[in-house]
């Protein structure tokens, strides 16, 4: 592979320049930002389950629902929300069994996740505000059901920066082929400065767009080009001390680009992992391999100081409008082992304590059937789980009603989840502000967000 810039060459050139001696600075807000209190999590890996996983088939056993399978939805439920277009109640075909020492019940289609039960806190009482993918995505990622706001990863980058000079603070690992609904705006920086936008690192080829020249060049040519640019920029700078910081930052950005070429490539090089580790994630099985690769990449990235990694599934795979049972089982099979592998791998490396893993989608699914065997979007109650990074595992928090429809006990709104994630990162959600058009904006907006203290270790 050709190199556009030779990192070593450029770094040495810059080091020769007294003005650049301490140019470890800008470009990515490094180290300069402090948390509000002692963080429990240094990094977050969000396993985002786009489409809306069916809680009744995964984490929220509902014997009563199974008992009433095929019966109409009780009237007192339908009074609240019109679900006339749907069929009767639909139980789950999957068996639940207690897992780990805690005995929390997990569905049989996520056996690997179940083996992490003692590290996982399941939240069974989530609710959100919209039944559409877009609005629910905006809610889950940006805190309100409107477009254009910064994603939580961008807030983390804005508040804390990256711990690695050579890698972005906020990284997105998605299936290269299938974008989620609403595309790249899922990891937008909104009105925060653009450098906080999630950087999509690709699964194959060069990890960053334009990381290498489209026509490879030899190291010699790359070096000559860099030397030419450097001497021309130095000449230009002599006459432009007025904007020195800007010019310096731009020169430093080329240095960072060169380092990224080395470090991003290295960070995503899974060949450096042992067979055993690869197996733990399921890389050797073609079914699990794509998701497994992203999970393992995520571990390597947080190991290297990336603050917030978001992993997306392929498109909206959990959106099981038809054939819910088989579809849910299929996507579970593809993601269960990799997700569990990630938790186990983080744990045995001592990283789980400082890495928060969040698993969940934008909403849940209806306990009634759609078109006979599917389930529709559902905002009133759903499940997700958290592990590591200050979370006390082996518990289930909150509950839906006996049919899995409404979250009824210890209800958790999205703002509570956001406040808790920021809290674990050492941030007070009320103090992570960005002044915009006369108002201090924040992730949790005007919500009375509560830290989910019972979940904390």
């Amino acid at each position, binding site marked *: 592979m050709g190199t556009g810039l030779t990192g070593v060459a450029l770094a040495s050139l810059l080091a020769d320049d007294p003005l650049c001696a301490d140019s470890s600075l800008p470009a990515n807000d490094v180290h300069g930002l402090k948390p509000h209190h002692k963080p429990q999590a240094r990094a977050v890996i969000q396993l985002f389950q786009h489409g809306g996983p069916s809680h009744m088939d995964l984490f929220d056993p509902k014997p009563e629902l199974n008992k009433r399978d095929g019966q109409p939805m009780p009237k007192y439920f339908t009074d609240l929300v019109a679900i006339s277009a749907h069929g009767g109640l639909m139980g789950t075909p999957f068996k639940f069994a207690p897992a780990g020492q805690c005995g929390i019940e997990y569905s049989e289609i996520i056996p690997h996740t179940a083996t992490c039960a003692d590290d996982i806190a399941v939240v069974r009482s989530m609710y959100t505000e919209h039944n559409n993918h877009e609005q629910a995505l905006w809610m889950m990622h940006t805190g309100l059901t409107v477009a254009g706001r910064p994603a939580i990863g961008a807030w983390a980058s804005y508040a804390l920066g990256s711990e690695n000079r050579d890698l972005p603070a906020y990284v997105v690992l998605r299936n290269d082929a299938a974008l989620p609904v609403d595309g790249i705006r899922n990891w937008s920086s909104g009105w925060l400065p653009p450098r906080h936008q999630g950087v999509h690192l690709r699964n194959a080829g060069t990890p960053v767009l334009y990381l290498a020249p489209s026509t490879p060049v030899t190291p010699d040519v790359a070096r000559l080009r860099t030397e030419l640019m450097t001497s021309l920029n130095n000449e230009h700078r002599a006459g*432009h001390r007025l904007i020195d910081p800007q010019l310096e930052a731009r020169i430093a950005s080329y240095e960072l680009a060169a380092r990224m070429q080395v470090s991003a490539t290295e960070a995503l090089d899974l060949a450096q992992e042992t067979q055993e580790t690869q197996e733990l994630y399921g890389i050797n099985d073609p079914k699990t391999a794509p998701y497994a690769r992203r999970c393992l990449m995520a571990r390597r990235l947080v190991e290297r100081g990336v603050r917030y990694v978001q992993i997306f599934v392929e498109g909206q795979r959990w959106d099981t409008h038809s054939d819910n049972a088989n579809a849910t089982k299929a996507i579970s099979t593809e993601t269960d082992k990799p997700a569990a592998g990630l938790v186990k791998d983080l744990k045995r490396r001592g990283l789980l304590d400082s890495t928060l893993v969040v698993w969940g989608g934008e909403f849940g699914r209806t306990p009634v059937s759609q078109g006979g065997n599917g389930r529709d979007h559902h905002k009133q109650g759903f499940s997700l789980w958290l592990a590591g990074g200050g979370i006390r595992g082996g518990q289930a928090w909150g509950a839906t009603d006996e049919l899995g429809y409404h979250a009824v006990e210890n209800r958790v709104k999205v703002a509570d989840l956001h406040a808790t994630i920021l809290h674990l990162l050492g941030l007070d959600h009320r103090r992570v502000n960005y002044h915009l058009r006369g108002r201090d904006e924040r992730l949790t907006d005007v919500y009375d967000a509560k830290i989910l203290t019972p979940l904390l270790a």
Partner: protein
Amino acid sequence: MTCCGDRYRRILWWAAIIGGSVGTPLSKELLAQDAAKTPAPAAVSSPPALNFEDDVVPVLEVRCFQCHGAETRKAGLDLRRRFSILKGGDSGTALVPGKPDESLLVEMVVKKEMPPKEEDPLDARQIDLLRRWVASGAPIKGKGESPLETAEADNLVSDKDRQFWAFQPPIRPQIPAVKDLHRVRNPIDAFLLSKLEASGLSFNPDASKLVLMRRVSFDLTGLPPTLEEIDAFLADESADAYERLVGRLLDSPQYGERWGRHWLDVVGYAESDGYLDADRERPEAWRYRDYVIRAFQNDKPYDQFIREQIAGDELQDWRGPKELSNELVDQLVATGFLRTASDPTYPGYKEKPEIYKVLADTMQIVGSTFLGVTIQCARCHEHKLEPISQRDYYQLQAVFAGAYDPNRWLASGERMIPLATDAEQAAINAHNKAVAERVSALQAESNRLLGDHRDKVFHEKVPQVPAAVREMLKAALLIPAEKRNEEQKKLVAEHAPGVVIDDNAVFARFADLKKEIEKLQAAIAAESALTRPITQLRGLVDLDDKPAETFVLRRGDFNNKGRGVAPGVPAVLAASDFRLQPAPLPRSSGRRRAFADWLTDPKHPTTARLQVNRLWAWHFGKGIVETLDDYGHAGKLPMHPELLDWLATEFVAQGYRQKAMHRLMVTSTAYRQASTFDPARAAIDGENLWLWAFRPARHEGEVLRDAVLAAAGKLNRQMFGPAVPVARQPDGSVTSADDANGNRRSVYLQVRRSQPVTLMESFDTPKMEINCTRRTEAIVATQALTLLNSPFMETNARALAGRIIQAAPGRAERILFAWKLLFTREPTETERQALSTFLDSFVAVQLGDKLATAAPAERQAAEDAAWPHAALSLFNTNAFLFVD
């Protein structure tokens, strides 16, 4: 940051008492906690004593005063004082102190007769509070009460609030005296210099002729000067050579493209609806873009520009005339200004939250463009920082209610204006109906022909089917596939393949049939082509002269309507007795026209100031008021208030001609000074706040792309028309095609919210979530990667290298050519040397061991091969990316 007065704190406090009807929303849980903390009335410890002013008024003011207060006194009842409650209204006294059960004030709210049914009843705590106050003898706070004034002034905004500088009309200041008179080219310099001199500063010397040429060319047209222009300018030694260059640039069509693009930022121009995965395209949006470009090219007076964009459809009765003049069409297109907001609605999906979001975004665009106060904060509660009430917000919303009617909502794609008069439309519709009839007759004939022949084949084949099931099969075949029962499905599956045949089999059986059918289909196509489309404009017009009623929405919630409001303007920006007085048109409310007239009043406090300040910021890199869209208490104060007001009044005096303002600004000494560093001046003003040097600036994304294409000789200067498509490439980037159309100026590239052009996005071209009043300027590694490694840069570097090699055979001439093309100047000796070293080293690397023995032609070939790399490196230099 300071809160503006006790009033706002009081409002917040009421919110806490009454459960958040105004102010920060409070959750039910929180209220429940509060309630739990409040001692119950019967508790052993006696509750705190209540008084009218502190405890009762906050409830009544928010829930009752609207109908029983200063403006109206329904049933003759005024609840603003204890004595007026005692006096009562049509039903007699409303208060019997000590006897809550006999007091109408309590009875009406207990029975939930008041507030009226469409509003929420008072909650239990509020009722309890009233009851306790009456029971305790209905005390007042002090010894007496102030009398009631019959028409109490609107106390939401006081004249004191209006005193804030930004809410006062600009007043033309005296031009200050300065010492260094010979540096004063026009009054701008006098204002700046007086401040500079006060700090012991002075202007930098003038920049060189070519630095200035490059600066003003990019500034006014977004493009570098051509080699011919450079030579001509250098040769022109007349005293006013620069002024005439400025004139030429302002007259060039490229000026309109450059400055139109600035305006498109402010209005949030985009060519897709945003939202949803589809991010539906707005194929007709470009007409508004072209309108804006032409408006700048033709120097349309800014007041007229505003009137057309706010109320182009209400300037004359556009539905009336027999013919739509170009002027009329232009004015209708201009209303595209009010159609830039994201809009997720489509036929079949018109949900209230989305509808009100379109309204809110549109209001925010109008507010930040013309009003300079953050009105959007008042959507849900009284503004906490500015004297803007919720009523102000909804009065402004009412201005647009004739077109944006939440109850008769037109989705984004439906809200189009047919570009034809009523008569033309009727004629076209009649014509199209006739065409459609002929087409359907032909289609019927075609169907019949094919059907008859298929039947023939069917009957020939039917005997193959066992007689027993023949009738059942026929019946099953007549039922649509998805409605057949199991038995029918089985029957069809088993027997149909033999008898149901496709068209080709029919054609095979009847030799001439195919030709006949084809002839008919050709006739249909020919006939269909006669359909005359009616061009649809994307603009905004009132639905009729019955605008929707607009209500104050409590907490911004459309389910929680408060009082109705008339159209109006923010009270703080107008005199206390100002009322918007729309004159209805035949099918239009006239409200936007009235609003536009108010905005373009020469004495308007913000209209001219905002625009001259934007022009200033685009020329000088920073506004005189740095917060370009916020002049309120939360914004910044002007660095040069007198200069701002002089410019604003001059703008009005010049008939709102923007080119006059450009001319003033770019011919000033302030603009013409060098951008070079000066240690002595920097020691006094290190940040160059007082403008002792010109501020160098990095190219915007569009300018960078255009400059690269221009240098490569590939820029297509074709103007106007539908957007140049952009597409996501397999590598994930978004680009236009590398062909003539794809290489047009950036202002013509499709603005798809979900598909920002990668190169421009990485150089801070805004994403248009709402609008962009000021661009950010980030420096990130992805810029370096894009400039070094993207196919776009590589391709154009190669093209540039080709031009350079074509230009001259010799190295020195080539270097000179490159420098003039890219940097509008000759290279310095160091630069010349650096490039020569690069070429030599490249040749050495290329030829390796053969270097010493290589023939001259071989060496030349190696040097030519170095130029694409040199060109790419030059594109990556700061000298290319920055304007000095």
